[in-house]
């Protein structure tokens, strides 16, 4: 057993209202600089839709993530030999204009300086790449917001294209959900494996995946090596940049900026313990539909005395062990199994988990007041978002798992509704409870975390461990921006 710790996030999609506050606060904090105009470490996608960058899930195009070849894990984009062959021209890389978008601003200054005229002046759109006026923007980080573009755009969603049954995109059958995305901080990160310079690394203490800005040589294989397309290129510094889970905040016990500012309070942060020795095997399971289960098998029960003993041996202190015990992630992803990984078939073991959204059913439930508990079971199968679509996102196509989660969430709602306003029959013996494979106690525990949990329950983040590193006494008062100055004054 090789115990390690990992910070994780759960996003509860039922509560996402698509406001993009996470994107805006993230951008204002981290990517409001020249060179990263087009970069959104955090973005929110309307689904169905191609996402940002366009069709990032199209693995045939970008060749991200891992594949299993002869029982062995290989980068889809190829190993060192093919990298060397393509090192000056990477055919799989996304381009800013085709796949991201040409960032633009407006000529605001003109509103102040325009000469006196008969007609009011206007600030024209201006490319942030060329500095020239553009007639109209043609794509953005969120061009298809709320199904804008309709049938021209929504069906280009790779998940839609994979569906067995053709879905007709029309007014009466509209379905929609939001998918907020950050870096997955995978247990088996393919971006790290893709880097020819070894600049990307998964840091030991909390599993956050980072780019060493000094080691990065700007080869950009990480950009498409990441199947989630969450590594970006800064054209100004010629280095790769990515979401770093706001580590300066998490180290201080604070949630990431996207989580802190989330209006719907959809985000949860916590740590989990896992066995690093099991990662490779879990990523190498043959059947993609078995990958979710395999991924769950690497995590360790933080209450198991054996695990605690081993964790201490591995240098993990009691605060982190306690953090793992109180972790909202452990509860949602591992214990209740209602939070699922995004595209487990990429075999990277992503560490951002999603509770799938319940959604309106296609047909109206009649006489809801008198509806028996078990009447909700067929309702789950009639929801607007096709189960197959959610499965394509979260379970490598296994609709059984999605159905089970939705049943559990439905059971929670039915139970809580019965508890507060009544209106359903004897719950304890219902088929719904049986099919959802849960108990009243568990549902109430879930309801608390999903619906009423306050800040301290949603974010359980032990502070970063600096006590073992560096000469902290010497470093007190030093400015973090300037490093330790002057370098010649360092006595070691």
């Amino acid at each position: 057993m090789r115990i390690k710790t990992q910070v994780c996030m759960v996003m509860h999609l039922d509560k996402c209202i698509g406001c993009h506050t996470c994107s805006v606060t993230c951008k204002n904090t981290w990517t409001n600089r020249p060179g990263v105009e087009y970069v959104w470490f955090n973005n929110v996608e309307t689904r169905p839709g191609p996402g940002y960058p366009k069709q990032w899930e199209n693995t045939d195009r970008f060749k991200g993530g891992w594949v299993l070849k002869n029982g062995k894990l290989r980068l889809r984009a190829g190993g060192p030999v093919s990298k060397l062959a393509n090192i000056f021209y990477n055919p799989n890389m996304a381009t800013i204009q085709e796949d991201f978008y040409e960032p633009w601003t407006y000529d605001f200054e003109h509103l102040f300086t325009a000469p006196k005229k008969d007609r009011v002046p206007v600030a024209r759109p201006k490319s942030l790449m060329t500095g020239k006026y553009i007639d109209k923007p043609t794509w953005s980080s969120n061009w298809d917001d709320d199904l804008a573009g309709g049938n021209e755009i929504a069906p280009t969603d790779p998940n839609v294209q994979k569906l067995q049954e053709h879905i007709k995109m029309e007014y009466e059958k509209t379905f929609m959900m939001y998918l907020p995305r950050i870096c997955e901080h995978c247990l088996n990160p393919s971006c790290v494996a893709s880097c020819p310079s070894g600049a990307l690394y998964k840091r030991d203490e909390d599993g956050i995946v980072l780019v060493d800005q000094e080691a990065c040589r700007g080869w950009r294989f990480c950009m498409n090596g990441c199947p989630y397309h969450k590594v970006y290129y800064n054209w100004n510094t010629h280095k790769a940049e990515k979401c770093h889970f706001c580590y300066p905040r998490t180290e201080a016990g604070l949630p990431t900026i996207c989580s802190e500012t989330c209006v719907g309070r959809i985000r949860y942060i916590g740590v989990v313990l896992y066995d690093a020795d099991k990662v490779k095997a879990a990523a190498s399971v043959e059947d993609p539909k078995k990958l979710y289960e395999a991924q769950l098998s690497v995590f360790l029960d933080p209450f198991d005395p054996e695990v605690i003993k081993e964790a201490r041996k591995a240098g993990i202190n009691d605060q982190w062990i306690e953090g793992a015990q109180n972790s909202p992630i452990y509860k949602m992803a591992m214990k209740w199994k209602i939070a699922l990984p995004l595209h487990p078939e990429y075999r990277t073991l992503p560490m951002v988990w999603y509770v799938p959204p319940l959604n309106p059913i296609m047909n109206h439930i009649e006489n809801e007041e008198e509806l028996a508990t078990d009447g909700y079971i067929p309702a789950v199968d009639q929801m607007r978002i096709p189960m197959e679509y959610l499965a394509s996102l979260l379970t490598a196509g296994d609709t059984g798992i999605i159905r089970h989660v939705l049943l559990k969430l439905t059971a929670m709602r039915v139970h809580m509704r019965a508890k507060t306003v009544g209106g359903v029959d004897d719950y304890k013996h219902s088929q719904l409870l049986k099919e959802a494979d849960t108990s009243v106690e568990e549902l109430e525990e879930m309801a608390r975390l999903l619906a009423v949990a306050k800040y301290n329950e949603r974010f359980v983040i032990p502070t970063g461990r600096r006590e073992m590193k560096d000469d902290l006494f010497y470093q007190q008062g030093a400015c973090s921006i300037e490093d330790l100055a002057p370098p010649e004054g360092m006595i070691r």
Partner: protein
Amino acid sequence: MAFAGDWLKPPRHMNGTSFFYFATDQYRYEAKVNEEQLKWGGRFSQMHPADFNAMAARLGWLPSYPQFTQNSLKLVKEAREKGLKEADEVAQYMAQLIKEEKVDWAIEHPDDPRNFPKVFFNWRSNLLGDTGKGHEYFAKHLMGGEDTVLAESGSSWQPETIDIAEKPPEGKVDLFVSLDFRMTSTGLFSDIVLPAATWYEKYDISSTDMHPFIHPFNAAITPPWEAKSDWDAFREISRVFSELAKDHLPACEDLVMSPLSHDTVDEIAQPFGKVFDWRKDGVEPIPGKTMPKFQIVKRDYPNVFHQFTTIGPDIQKGYGSKGVVIPGEDVYKELLNRLGVCGREGLGKGRPDLYSAKHAIEAILDMSGATNGKRAVAGWKSLEKKTGQKLAEIAQGHEEDAYTLLDITAQPRQAISTPVWSGMEKDGRRYSPFTVNTEYMIPWRTLTGRQSFYLDHEVMLDFGEGLPLYLPPLNHGPFLLGEDKVENSGKWLTVRYLTPHQKWGIHTMFTETTNMTTLFRGWQTVWINEEDAASIGIKDNDWIEVYNRNGAVAARAVVTYRIPRGVVYMYHAQDRTMGVPANAINKNRGGTHNSVTRITPKQTHMIGGYSQLSYGFNYYGPTGNQRDTIAIIRRLKEVDWLED
């Protein structure tokens, strides 16, 4: 304090809908009422809205400004010269003048240059790029700027009691001043734009009944360049104004006409909901009974600065709103202590100092029951007297609470329940309207003291709206007969045009930044169903224009299956400052979302002097309804930026 009630009363308030309806000459372009409604009543429902509004002003239902074509300062002076000493006498005199038609109602002569709003201060509102319904009428008649009004007054329904000039006036405003930190369309139309401090450069407080907290705004930096906080900007204007007034506008008396008000005895001025128009129904014009009230206010123009910067003596007589009175003696003493004593020579010397925004914040925190427990209890006690119910306990336990700016800066505080609101925030509850009425047996402020579903006012019955009912959308076409002279060779579609609030804001503020516009498609866009779009050859992101008799707007199409056929959405408040080319109709800058709308007044909102149907500033009066717009959408073939 907001309306200088600590120095003089009453303030002069005007309801915006009526003001702009006349000031922008929109009344000239009315379309006849729904055929459906003709089946009802007929005495009022067939009156032109402008005639109805003039009647509402005449009967004291609504405020009306400007008041009379004759100068109100001179009217009082003349009354005094006739030896009238008492306020009542002057009011009687006014009623007589009006009866004998020796003074003219300004509302009946909106196009007389003496009634133009010649100087206009626009404070932090995007009147000309967003909130002004019927934007092109604003541009044409109020501002005298470029406009795309396509309606013709000749073919429109004209009022009977309004004196209409042959040629509609254009550019009524001589001086338009904006105080705003953003360059909106309003700024572009302004003669002067005063640089204003942003939220992060000034001190302010905010609260609403939507959440239970009192929030502070704190300056992170001092205002850059010449920018000033709103408080400082108005204070400095008052300083210069006062200096100039010494020579040009000495202290004098003014006549203020005010409507029959909510929460006062005026609510029983016109009982049984019967309408008697003193002009023709044989009743006497009696101020405060069958017509508005007339009061004399002493204007001390050379001392406006001192009045602005100190708390006036009248606070000591008590203060409050909605009929709730808080005794003021102790408050005044506390304010002297909390704000400090003004040492500036002049009228304000020795009074509580109100020089800076921080002073004003502390004064509000001290005087409001929401932030000062003693005031809350006093307020409830005042309502106890009126209702005979035990109410003080609602705020009890809070007597010691007196939040300061520093307190709410450390952490926003929960508001204390006050009788000004009908919700209750006691016991950690969240605001919900009318909880005090149900739980403490406080009568609703209605004729019956209960929730009223039946309104027996004559006008309501005349409109067939005595009980709540569904009215179908108005069925006005995009043009009146013979009005449409727009050349239209290509394909087009007539649609219902809606302007809902966008998902990222109520209005323009903050949504026009680079990042926010990047989060979608930049400005301006109109959503349309994809089958509708295909039927007229519009593809996603194509340039389009939407137009009708009110004007035209140029934008890009967002094509989707998510909205039904027959409607287009133009999200509220995008403004034409960014990325908007010319329209094809008259090559003017393609307007704003309100270019194709207009004010559609609802006469039943204008009823006054009858219980809950009485005018209340910021509470009750006509809304500037711009819905039910029908417009034409088509492709915009050419893009002209009008900038080269």
